[in-house]
């Protein structure tokens, strides 16, 4: 397999007749993390959604391993582990159930779930229904969901939100492990992500 690489050239997005961002270009190789910073409304979330092709009013080019991602959307979606500002969890299902279903919805074997639960110290909660959890615990489950995918590129929207200090440390460890395995991470964040080698892209200047 070719080493993972993401190349974005001249990405622009307009919403409601106003440009959200214009002419963005950056590259990201395996093992690299890109932190998107900027004020509220500077387009961090929109950029993440544009990269995932969830927003259609976008011009420019996104290339994955040299191939334009628009040509084969399903292959591109397989590369993406997504954490939106919503957790994407079902309150009536248990923690482990949520992760197992998310894996099957991606067509993946649920073989990394135990590891992901352990990474975020969720084993004691594995059988609890998600609606009985606190906001921070839910966020940890959502992060464990991303960590349990086989996707090389993680797109994370405010991953540090609602996390206490030990959970933030767990997230950094998990991110570090993912990067060490050749993965890529793009994270929109207010708080500094404090990870060695993290690059920063400031939006809305």
């Amino acid at each position, binding site marked *: 397999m070719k080493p993972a690489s993401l190349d974005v050239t001249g990405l622009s997005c307009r919403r409601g007749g106003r440009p959200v961002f214009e002419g963005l270009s950056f590259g990201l190789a395996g093992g690299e993390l890109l932190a998107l910073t900027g004020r509220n409304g500077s387009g961090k979330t929109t950029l993440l959604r544009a990269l995932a092709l969830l927003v259609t009013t976008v011009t420019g080019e996104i290339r994955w391993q040299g191939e334009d991602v628009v040509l084969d959307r399903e*292959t591109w979606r397989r590369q993406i582990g997504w954490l939106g500002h919503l957790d994407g969890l079902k309150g009536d299902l248990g923690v482990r159930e949520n992760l197992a279903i998310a894996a*099957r919805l991606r067509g993946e074997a649920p073989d990394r779930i135990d590891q992901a639960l352990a990474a975020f110290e969720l084993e004691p909660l594995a059988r609890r229904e998600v609606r009985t959890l606190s906001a921070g615990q839910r966020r940890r489950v959502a992060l464990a969901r991303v960590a349990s995918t086989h996707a090389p590129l993680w797109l994370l929207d405010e991953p540090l939100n609602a996390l206490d200090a030990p959970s933030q440390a767990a997230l950094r460890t998990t991110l570090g492990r993912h990067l060490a395995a050749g993965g890529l991470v793009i994270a929109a964040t207010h708080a500094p992500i404090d990870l060695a080698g993290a690059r920063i892209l400031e939006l809305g200047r």
Partner: protein
Amino acid sequence: MTGFAALLARDLRLVWRRPGDVMVVLAFFVVATVLFPLGIGPETNLLARIAAGVLWCAALFASLLSLDRLFATDYEDGALDLLLLAPWPLELAVLAKCLAHWIVTGLPLAMLAPLMGVVFGLSGEGLGALCLTLLVGTPTLSLVGGLAAALTLGARRGGALLALLALPLCVPTLIFGAAAVEAVAMGDGFVTHLAILGALALMALATLPWAIAAALRQAGE
């Protein structure tokens, strides 16, 4: 195909965890149909004549009642993004969700309707025709309602708007469904009606998943 099965199983399991939502729909169907004999009085001939129309209308309203949550829950908790990002066609996901809706509303309604038909004094053949036409017709209602639900995602007063969008599109199904039961009462066959209902269902199946998927992509932006 694993994704399709996983989504179908997930939606059925969610209903299983909260059976109240489905029970309310079925209870609405029973109460709404029972009101007609009470309001009109014990005129057996008149009741038998209007039975098909009343039961079909009630089934239509009952299935619409549960449709506004079809995509709304996924939209509100962010699971819709995961469906949009799943590495298989969104059209299949739509189909899985509509199938799950049909299994928990259309199917029980079709089973329940003959029981309610007894209240109206329908004949044995009439009850059979009612059940069969509902079995063939309710998938169309789930798909048409699914389109309305997807189009009204995130809209204020979505429920009323949903009914306004879906009801006119359900008219052909309603007409042929009710007419089939009447045809049986007149002593005619209802195969033609059943064939037309089947054709409507297949037409909905062949076109609506794409329209619903497009509406969901729009809502996801």
